[in-house]
């Protein structure tokens, strides 16, 4: 049976632990990765869009898709987040123009805002590789290679998912999987105003200083240039072909 054969090959490829080597394609044709590059999308709208795409991906109505966008300033509270972890009052947040959204993802309180490149890959991992750890490493690797292209030396920190420069976090990850279809993804600080992070993290904990490409390089970066590198690396690592690119300023 053809499919059974395919899965054997997959299995052998995935026997390399911790590797982020893309799988050998079992068919001659590369599957595409469609990219939507959007401007500012409010968090809830983006979440609804993701959910719609996830359902479509499950039904195989769309190809693997990457959403690239920015959020207006927003603090998202994961399911386990406690209100007291917000350091600022609702009034202060309102004055700073920050929305607070309760998200159904797991995890902590986090901040998204202008200058931060958000990537939401909607991928069917069952067709790529059924391995969440591998997937996390792929996202990290794509960001590390992108950083390198931009002149930033970024690394992994063992035990702490995300991408780090000099032990400050430049990109964070949060992934949701439903029947091997991924949603949520990564947030990469390009030109983010880092002072926003003060509203949430008990910043003092030196474990989690944040940084941005801008801070590392001393100059702001053009998002579209970063996107080009990122899409290329991500598609390459996932064994996908760059598909259609949709640019929409919403």
């Amino acid at each position, binding site marked *: 049976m053809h499919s059974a054969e395919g899965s054997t090959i997959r299995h052998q490829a995935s026997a390399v632990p911790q590797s982020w080597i893309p799988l050998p394609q079992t068919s001659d044709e590369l599957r595409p990765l469609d990219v939507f590059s959007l401007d500012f999308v409010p968090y809830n709208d983006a979440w609804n869009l993701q959910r719609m795409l996830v359902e479509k991906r499950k039904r195989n109505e769309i190809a693997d898709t990457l959403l690239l966008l920015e959020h207006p300033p927003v603090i998202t509270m994961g399911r386990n987040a406690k209100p007291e972890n917000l350091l600022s009052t609702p009034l202060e947040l309102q004055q700073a123009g920050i929305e607070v959204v309760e998200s159904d993802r797991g995890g902590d309180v986090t901040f998204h805002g202008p200058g931060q490149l958000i990537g939401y890959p909607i991928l069917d991992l069952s067709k790529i590789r059924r391995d969440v750890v591998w997937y996390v490493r792929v996202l990290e690797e794509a960001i590390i290679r992108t950083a390198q292209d931009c002149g930033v030396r970024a690394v992994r920190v063992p035990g702490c998912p995300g991408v780090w420069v000099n032990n400050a976090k430049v990109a964070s990850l949060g992934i949701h999987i439903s029947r091997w279809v991924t949603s949520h993804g990564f947030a990469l600080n390009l030109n983010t105003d880092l002072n926003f992070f003060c509203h949430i993290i008990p910043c*003092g*904990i030196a474990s989690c200083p944040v940084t941005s490409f801008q801070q590392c390089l001393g100059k702001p970066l053009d998002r579209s240039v970063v996107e080009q590198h990122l899409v290329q690396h991500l598609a390459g690592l996932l064994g996908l072909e760059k598909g259609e690119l949709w640019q929409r300023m919403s």
Partner: protein
Amino acid sequence: MAADVLMPQMGESVAEGTITRWLKKEGEAVSKDEPLFEISTEKVDAEIPSPIAGVLGKILVKEGQTVAVHTVVAQIEAVGSLGSLGSVGSAETPQKSASKAPESATAGTERTEGTDKSKAGASAEKESSELLRASPLVRRMAEEHGIDLSLVEGTGTGGRITKEDFMAYLERQGSATAPKAAPPKPVPAPTPAKTGERDESVPMTIMRKRIAEHMVMSRRTSAHVTTVFQVDLSRVAEIYRKEKAGFENQEGVKLTYTPFFIRALIDSLKRFPILNSSVNGDQIVYHKDIHMGIAVALEGGLIVPVVHHVDEKNFLGLVRTIHELAARARQKKLTVDDVQGGTFTITNPGVYGGLFATPIINQPQVGILGVGTIYKAPVVIQDAIAIRTVVHLALSFDHRVVDGAVADQFMASVKKYLEGWEESLWA
């Protein structure tokens, strides 16, 4: 018959998973492929669908617990399932079982107490029709192994159960739920502590989680070695006693011992620049500026504000900055800049009388000085015993880049600076 729900393996190198949320309660009906529970591994949350339709029986692994992959986490009762017939009288052919479908419907109606359950019964009936979606070969194999085919997911055309499906199911069952054949895989070492009735389980605050992550990350990152020096602090203590009141009256800030230690550290960090470095990948980054982190205890945690360019401040400026940072730390008013960029850290574990502690390095730094309690002790000086004010200073250093001899020379330099204190506090 109950089907076991297993902790799925979410990847080649994934050995365990944490259940974050049950989406169904015990006794609640669930249809096939409906999300049943959520797990998390690394930074990934995954929704796990129910393998079959039925009623969620016992939940064996509670929310928050971490177990090895393939561990049974719950059981699902396939309501009115033909499986019970199949396992009781395994001599019966599957065809016969299938023909008893009406009987299973009766079993379903017997359970009409709750609407949920009758619904589940209905979906279980739907399941039973899948029995017919198997080749004679697969049915014969099912009979031989005493397997209920309604529990096997079919991936063939129209959901047909292929031989591969059956073998895969058998393999899973064999490794996870056949204790007679093979004992269940032991759960790896750190099993979660049992929570008794009188125990209280409190989720960690974000600050606590970050501290926890950082401490473990640091331990994993650096090769920690701690060297301890006893320092005769009599001279400093005398100055401290003399100047304390005047300092507070004239300058309005409380004098502590901390700035004395920091001045000594600055002098020695300049002499031994490797202690003021960081490791970045395979590079050693020597920091030209000295930014001193000062650990401050908070209720429920700690925070490390940083005095930037600490070497450019005089003694009074240092005292003022420390005072101001500590106050803002306690009021949670620190900014990002206040806590970033430290190149060395000083901490004060001696407040409650501890002689010394072995502090954990504040990454990505390579050294941290722990100041023990300051007390009077008999000390031998030139073969005479004297009562002196002493302190134990413990330096934890990263042995990846700092050699033991260098660390001890550094500490000898700190000791010398303090024991022979010459600086004016008012300069």
